[in-house]
């Protein structure tokens, strides 16, 4: 066992997380950092490092390094924008973890904010802004493939064709995830989703229907990362970062490869499990990046929980849902029914579960939690394993 970074998440802050908030991303980010510091029992003056998560998918490009001034932070030892598309949140947390591990800063805030929703308008085009693009990748727009749903539809279609499956497996994911959201007061959609509701919803990009796609909100999330030995006397139970890893496959667009289904989790998993000495069977909960319902299935297989085409077993009869008897997955409702704040959504839920602070949806076993982030069309990936403090001292 190689061990991971000497770092823990000691504070968690949220701002917004709804469709009515009209504050700017920069202001939401500022409020989330203030809330995260307060949650950790600190004032913002204790912060000596700042990492801002940026993605090209975020709607407000204004959020930048000047967040330091907006927060009135002096003498920072780290001020950085982490850009790794949908994997930016875990990339930022990894940067923070390594920095505090090396003693180069003590209290690092990582923050993501986005405001894709214009209050009072239709949701449809939240992430489908006009784009022309560059090079071969830009041809997707010429083919009409705007928005993340269009390219993840290609993954789902291919997954079905390879394994002889159909939309039923996606409906299992959407319905199970909604059952968790019903228990989360912060979730966007909390009304139980029936099989009929799922199939009656309109297609976005076949085979993906409305409830196969993330619920956009305006909001911000911040976490505070510190060294493990400092974390012990925090205001909250520390959540240890047992391991952190990235995996970016770079799969060629050519015969013999399967870019739409090749997931970087297969690369990151080796590092994560080697660092912790754990196996997939020893993971208590998974918090996957589920902007589209196909993603948890592909993630479960990449991480070795199931063989290719077999991950549906995780959701059979609602096994991954509340009281389902299987490994709980996306226990806050994920992106699908909870809220889409990119890589921070699964982080929030993992921290709450590890603290034992997840209320009605608290899982009995929450000692080891796998958290993942995905970006691009499965181009960029990061994963961490978090450990509850009482089990990993």
């Amino acid at each position, binding site marked *: 066992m190689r061990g991971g970074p000497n770092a823990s998440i000691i504070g968690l802050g949220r701002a917004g997380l709804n469709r009515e908030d009209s504050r700017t991303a920069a202001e939401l980010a500022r409020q989330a950092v203030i809330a995260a510091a307060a949650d950790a029992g600190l004032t913002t003056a204790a912060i000596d490092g700042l990492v801002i998560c940026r993605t090209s998918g975020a709607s407000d490009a204004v959020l930048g390094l000047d967040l330091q001034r907006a927060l009135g932070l002096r003498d920072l030892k780290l001020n950085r924008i982490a850009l790794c598309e949908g994997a930016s949140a875990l990339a930022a947390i990894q940067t923070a973890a390594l920095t505090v591990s090396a003693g180069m800063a003590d209290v690092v805030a990582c923050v993501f904010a986005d405001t894709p929703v214009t209050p009072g308008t239709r949701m*449809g*085009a939240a992430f*489908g*802004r*006009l*784009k*022309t*693009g*560059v*090079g*071969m*990748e*830009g*041809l*997707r*727009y*010429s*083919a*009409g*493939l*705007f*928005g993340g*749903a*269009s390219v993840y*539809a*290609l*993954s789902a*279609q*291919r997954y079905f*064709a390879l394994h002889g499956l159909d939309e039923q497996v996606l409906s299992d994911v959407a319905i199970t995830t909604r059952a968790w959201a019903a228990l989360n007061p912060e979730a966007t959609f909390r009304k139980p989703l029936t099989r009929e509701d799922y199939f009656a919803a*309109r*297609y*976005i*990009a*076949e*085979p*993906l229907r409305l409830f196969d796609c993330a619920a956009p909100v305006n909001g911000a999330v911040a976490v505070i990362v510190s060294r493990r030995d400092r974390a012990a006397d925090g205001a909250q139970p520390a959540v240890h970062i047992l391991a952190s890893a990235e995996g970016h496959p*770079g799969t*060629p*667009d*050519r*015969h*013999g490869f399967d*870019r*739409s289904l090749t997931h970087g989790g297969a690369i990151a998993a080796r590092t994560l499990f080697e660092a912790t000495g754990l196996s997939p069977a020893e993971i208590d909960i998974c918090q996957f990046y589920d902007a589209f319902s196909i993603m948890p299935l592909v993630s479960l297989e990449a991480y070795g929980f199931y063989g290719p085409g077999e991950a549906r077993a995780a959701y059979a009869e609602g096994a991954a849902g509340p009281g389902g008897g299987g490994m709980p997955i996306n226990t806050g409702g994920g992106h699908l029914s909870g809220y889409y704040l990119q890589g921070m959504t699964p982080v929030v839920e993992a921290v709450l579960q590890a603290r034992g602070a997840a209320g009605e949806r608290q899982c009995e076993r929450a000692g080891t939690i796998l958290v993942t982030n995905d970006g691009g069309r499965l181009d960029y990936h990061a994963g961490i394993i978090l450990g509850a403090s009482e089990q990993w001292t």
Partner: protein
Amino acid sequence: MTIPMPEPDLASAYFFAALDQGRLEVLRCGTCDTAHLSVLACDVCGGGDFTGEPASGGGVIYSFTKLHTAHHPAFADRLPVCGGIVELDEGPRLFAPLFGEESPAIGARVLVELLPVEDRMIAAFRLVRSAE
């Protein structure tokens, strides 16, 4: 309103220049023979010498979708829009509009049709009836 066309980058400059002149071409690696569409260094052998050659124009659908939401005015009156990724018989894949009477399916045969888009050309693919 016409459909959006990408700006060429360094790796795709040859592909788009040929396409705009009405030719679908692949770039064949001089060292290992791998065919590429857009390339600076061959990912198989590291080679850097490529020769353009005409593609057959035939291929199969790698994956596809029908879009039911228009994010661009050019597609607003043609929903649902069918697009996907085509694997050319030479091996490389590209995003492309798909059309034709046959239903799209993964593995279905397609044939290129070059369509003008203002002063550019796009490679769209028509589904062809299977031989069986």
